[in-house]
């Protein structure tokens, strides 16, 4: 989770990110941030997330759960 939080701080350009944070609440969240998340999931965690799947992800925790589920 800590690795994901670090990556999200970088993508969202904020000081801190918590698992319960909602992606859409961040000022910088847009379609390009979504693409950065997809690219990061692949390069950092080796998993493939489709843009469609990301649409139903609300919080950073759900994103983490999605990545974990794809790892197995």
């Amino acid at each position: 989770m800590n690795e994901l939080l670090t990556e999200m701080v970088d993508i969202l350009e904020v000081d801190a990110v918590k698992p319960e944070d909602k992606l859409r609440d961040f000022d910088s969240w847009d379609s390009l941030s979504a693409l950065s998340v997809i690219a990061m999931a692949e390069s950092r965690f080796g998993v493939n997330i489709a843009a469609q799947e990301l649409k139903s992800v609300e919080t950073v925790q759900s994103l983490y759960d999605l990545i974990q589920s794809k790892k197995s």
Partner: protein
Amino acid sequence: MPSSDACILVTGASSGLGRAIAIQLSQTHRMILHGRSLNGLEATRAACLDPGRHLVWNHDLNSLDNLGTSLVSRLVAAEARVESFIHCAGTVKVLPVRSTTFQIAQGLLNVNYLAAVEIINLLLKKRINQDNLRNILFISSIWSNFGSKAHATYCASKAALDGYMRALAVELAPNIRVNSILPGAILTSMAAIGFQDPEILAKWERDYPLGLGKPEDVAHMAAFLVSPEARWITGQQLTVDGGRTVNMSLR
């Protein structure tokens, strides 16, 4: 048994457009099929006319340092002369510019553009290819001339290829013709990310006057451009896109 007839070298022949081009040109030429996937290359060769006639060259274009030695040893072993070089290998990266470092950009440029530079350098050397090269063809993209969100590095790599194409056309004339084919969206594994997204698919249906393309559409243009019938065409971007880039319709 090595033959001395002139070959066509196609990079990226293990799938997609490269495979279609290889199969099309195998009807009339001896091919050197390059790709990253040996299984893919063997499948392409099996689909070519007279499979035993064609050669396979397996090398990852990300490895530029040993690309030269790999190509030269392949050519020497096969006693092959390369008459046409078609650079179809390419990769795409969907990434916003604010996440794109120069290292990431370099990776894409290596395969999409610099690998072609290295191969051409070698094919022009007398001791390697004995002045046999007559035709160079780049498979570029309509995105060479236009922008696309999160595709800056891809757009730049194709624009680099086409800038290089024009300079080559001028420098290598009159013996060698150099052109680029600019395809629109075609269903291949590289474009799969777009084809899996219903929103993108729906937009493509609206934006393409002639609908989406097939690999054969590009293969037929390639066959023409390497033929004697195209003898007075050089330095050109040939767009094969179902009318996409001329479409400014409101709906």
